[in-house]
Every structure is written in structure tokens, then in C-alpha cells.
């Protein structure tokens, strides 16, 4: 773990005399390695280390009785400081129904998250959710969301997207109208997974956005995403705009460095984490827990 590594660094340092800038540099290399091994992006790691180095070179570490503990404390504080800025509530004030649009790469967990969000809104916020299957390309995607909607239960509606024909813009418009007429407080649009570099499909997403003006466009990302997290987050941020982030599959043993990479790139709240396949497996994002996990 990082604390073991740093302990080793500082044990060697203490053997040779007092702490110097060069010694701190060796410790910085270990911190850098820990972040890269946790899948934090190369450039995000670089900026982060620069901030940590600045504090480490300050007198607080150079004079500290236990420099490795002090350095870990600085790194953890910096990480929580960055991630802490990321914790946020899902804001749904304004027009009713509030429209939420879920976007992200193929397989990241959007459809499952849509249903989890519906259940959360119903149980925790007394808002009746209307789920809209907008993935017209993946085999049985419409059926998947309809099946999940039934599992969310009483109070949750689902648009009857046809298996053939139709296009996402027209379906989204019709669904929001139906939801409004039936008195649903929230509409959740489940879009098809797509590559951020797919111009045509990013254009389709913009068309849906412009047609129904979502209150929240939520980027759903897989917690095990590696270095690509920055490129993808940039792609969706610049391509359609991101208001918030959900990290799925967080209950595994992925270190979750993507959380830092994504937050550094989009600067928007990390709203929830997915912690399982069942519909109740959605939790509020805890910055200190994610920070501890990234540090290992």
C-alpha cells in the first residue's frame, strides 16, 4: 500500500540524515506510482502531484516527526479536497416534469442506473418517475428497461417505445408530453451507449437534448475505466454537456481512479455510485471513501 511504500522511503531517508527536497522527490515518485496504479489519468496525476509537492516542501513535512504519516495525510487531504468538491445533490427544481438524460459508453450501466434512479426518486424523494427507452439499436434494450420498470413497481411509469421504427427525438418528445399529461414529476431518458468519438451519434444526442431540454444530463461511467476516462469525459462534456456523474460497478475491487480523472475533466458533481446489479444498489457518493480506495 502507499503507506507501506512511503514508510520505506522515509526509513531510508532518516538513516542518511535530514529531509531534503531530493528525499521528498523520491516520496513523490511513490505517490505518483500509487495514483497511476489506481488508474488515475497520467496528466491528472501530474497536476495532483504538483499540488502535493508544494505542500510537502513546506515546513510541515520537512520537520514532521513521522514524515510518511504526514505526507499520507497531505495526499489524502488533497484528494478528499478535490473529490469533496465533487459531492453534490441531484437538483431537479424548475419545470415539471424534470427531465434526466443518461449518457455514456456502451455497457457502462445506463439502463440499470435509469431504473435505480427511478426507484430512488420514488422511495427517497416521493417523485414519480417515467422511464423512457431511447436505445433503438441494441437487441432487446427496450425490453430490458420495460422489465426493470416493472421491477421498480407501483408509481413508476414507462413509455411504450415500439420495437420497430421511430427515432429518439420523436420518442423523447412524445414521452415527455405523455409524462406531463399523466402528472409524473420526473422523466428519465435511457439513451443508447455510444463512443464519444462517434460524430453522428453525438449529434443524435444533441438533437434529443435540444428537443426536450433535460434538467440534468448525467454521464454514467464504469468505475473500472482506465486512462480513457479523460478522453471519454471530454468527449461527452464537449459533445452534449454533462451536469452530473454516476460511477457504476463500484462494489468491485477497481481502485476507482477514474473518479478523479472524470471529476478533474468535467468539474461537475459525482452524484451517485452503483454498488450492485439490483435496483436498490445505488448510493450517495462519499469522497473520503473513494479517496482512501484510490490510495490503496
Amino acid at each position, binding site marked *: 500500500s502507499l503507506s507501506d511504500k512511503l514508510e520505506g522511503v522515509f526509513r531510508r531517508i532518516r538513516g542518511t540524515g535530514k529531509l531534503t527536497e531530493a528525499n521528498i522527490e523520491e516520496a513523490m515518485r511513490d505517490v*505518483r506510482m500509487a495514483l497511476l496504479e489506481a488508474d488515475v489519468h497520467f496528466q491528472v496525476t501530474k497536476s495532483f502531484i504538483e499540488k502535493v509537492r508544494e505542500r510537502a516542501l513546506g515546513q510541515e513535512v520537512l520537520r514532521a516527526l513521522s514524515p510518511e504519516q504526514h505526507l499520507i495525510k497531505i495526499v489524502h487531504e488533497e484528494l478528499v479536497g478535490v473529490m469533496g468538491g465533487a459531492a453534490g445533490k441531484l437538483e431537479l427544481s424548475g419545470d415539471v416534469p424534470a427531465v434526466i438524460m443518461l449518457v455514456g459508453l456502451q455497457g457502462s450501466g445506463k439502463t440499470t442506473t435509469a431504473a435505480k434512479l427511478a426507484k430512488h426518486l420514488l422511495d427517497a424523494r416521493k417523485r414519480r418517475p417515467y422511464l423512457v427507452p431511447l436505445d433503438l439499436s441494441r437487441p*432487446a434494450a427496450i425490453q*430490458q428497461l420495460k422489465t426493470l420498470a416493472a421491477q421498480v413497481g407501483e408509481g413508476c411509469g414507462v413509455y411504450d417505445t415500439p420495437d420497430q421504427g421511430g427515432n429518439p427525438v420523436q420518442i423523447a418528445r412524445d414521452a415527455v408530453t405523455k409524462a406531463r399529461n399523466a402528472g409524473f414529476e420526473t422523466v428519465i431518458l435511457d439513451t443508447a451507449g455510444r*463512443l*464519444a468519438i462517434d460524430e453522428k451519434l453525438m449529434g443524435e444526442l444533441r438533437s434529443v437534448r435540444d428537443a426536450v431540454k433535460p434538467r440534468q444530463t448525467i454521464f454514467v461511467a464504469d468505475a473500472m475505466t482506465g*486512462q480513457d476516462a479523460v478522453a471519454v469525459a471530454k468527449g461527452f462534456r464537449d459533445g452534449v454537456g454533462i451536469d452530473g456523474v454516476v460511477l457504476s460497478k463500484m462494489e468491485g*475491487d*477497481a481502485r476507482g481512479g477514474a473518479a478523479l480523472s472524470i471529476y478533474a475533466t468535467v468539474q461537475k458533481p459525482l452524484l451517485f455510485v452503483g454498488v450492485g446489479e439490483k435496483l436498490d444498489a445505488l448510493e450517495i457518493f462519499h469522497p473520503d471513501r473513494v479517496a482512501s480506495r484510490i490510495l490503496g
Partner: protein
Amino acid sequence: AFGRGSARDADLEALEEVLIEGDVGVRATQDLLAGLRGLPAEQRNAAGMTRALRSRMRALLADVPPETASLPKTPWVVLVVGVNGVGKTTTIGKLAARHRAAGRSVLLVAGDTFRAAAIEQLGVWAERADCQIVKQGPGSDPSSVVFDGMSAAVARGVDVVLIDTAGRLHTKVNLMEELKKVRRVVDRVLPGAPHEVLLVVDATTGQNAVSQARTFAGAVDVTGVILTKLDGSARGGVVVAISHELGLPVRYVGVGESVADLQPFDPDAYVDALLA
């Protein structure tokens, strides 16, 4: 990481960034770059180092045996495994079409009895690839479906059986036990099967893919890897460590969502793309 100053160090740093950002991982990157230190002076420039790096990386990737014209055994049984959402079901559809194009009869087994519409999803692929499918109702025991599928395959004399399984995080002990049971059932119906156990890895995955590979290999004897979503910006560099540390060869790469978007792994093209 290489100190400041010389042009060679700047080149090394640039190469380090390419490798790390390609998800090759810190340790593998350090080993690969350490190997460049022995280069003669005239090769210590960007071009020389890239060339040396290319051949070192290529050496870490197992060669892919060419697809044989005929199957070693029939039915040839393939078990497809991996964590959630990586592309198992879609890849089975693509593999099925490949076998069909080679004139073989194919049977799909709907072993994901848990996830919403998983069985329907595989059913669509069975239609697209024009092959048989064995399934039960949602919520049924995966081992029971697999037993039915294997029995049908043997009885009907099909050439290829492709078994879909539910996505599962490798850290879930009970789900890994369920997978081990599925594998045992396959072997019980047809001793020696499954003949291939393919681990599907998403190219956007970071270092966790190595831990996935290690755990799945330990549980069900993975024979090869399929790297999906390589049509995106991710390079899937984790396969270097998976290939080198665990001896698992990459067999195919997924390059899109349509039935034809599967290619045999080409290690040379792969390394070129990663270092581009």
C-alpha cells in the same frame, strides 16, 4: 521519472506517457522502458527507441494460432465469461456468425438467467446469425440451462456450442462458484469440454482487468481473451500484462456493435496502434 536534461530522457518520458495512457500499467511500462537502456547510442532517438519498444512489446504478446479449417473436436464448446457489460453476448453473436460463414452448425446457450432481457438479447443474435438457441425462463438455474444446451448439442450433433453467461464481478465469491459449477456441468455432459473458455475484456478497462483475468483464470481455466470496444479511443494495454504475466493469448478483438465487427487478433497491428 527519468530526471531532467537530455533529449533521450525527454523521448523516454514521451514513451512512458504513451504506454501509461494506453493502460499498459506502471510496472509493465517500467520493465519495457528499462529494456531500452541498453540501446547503442545511435539508436537512442525517438525513432530508434520506438522501434525497440515495438519489438519488446510484440515479444510480450502471444502469437495467435491461425483459425483451423476444421474443428479439432465436435461439438466444439466455447464458454464465454467476464465482468458486467464488457460485450460477452454481442461477441457470441459475432462468433456465431463467423462459424456459420464457415459452414458450421451453431447452438447458443442462454446461460444468463439473471439480467433483465438477457435471454431475449441472445435470441436476437441467434436470429441474426441463423443458429439454434437453448434457453429456459428467466430466473432458472444457469447450470440447468447449460446442461440442457449441452445435451441438445450432443444429441443434435451440432458443430459449435457457444455458452453465454451472466456478467459478474470477479470479487463475488458466490457468483464465481456458480460459474465453476457451470463449467463442471459442461464437462460432465461432454468430458474435455469446454474446449475454449474466453474471457471478454473491455478495452476501456484499467488495471482491474489484470485482477479480473487472474481470478477468472483461477476459477475456470481461461484459455484466451477477447478484447472488445477497440473501435473507441481506448487501447486496451492491459492485455500486455494479461498476456505476459498470465500467459493468456488475445484471440479476437471487437471493433463495433454489428455482427461483422470481430477480427482475429493481430499483435503487430495492435502494437502499432498503441504506439501511434
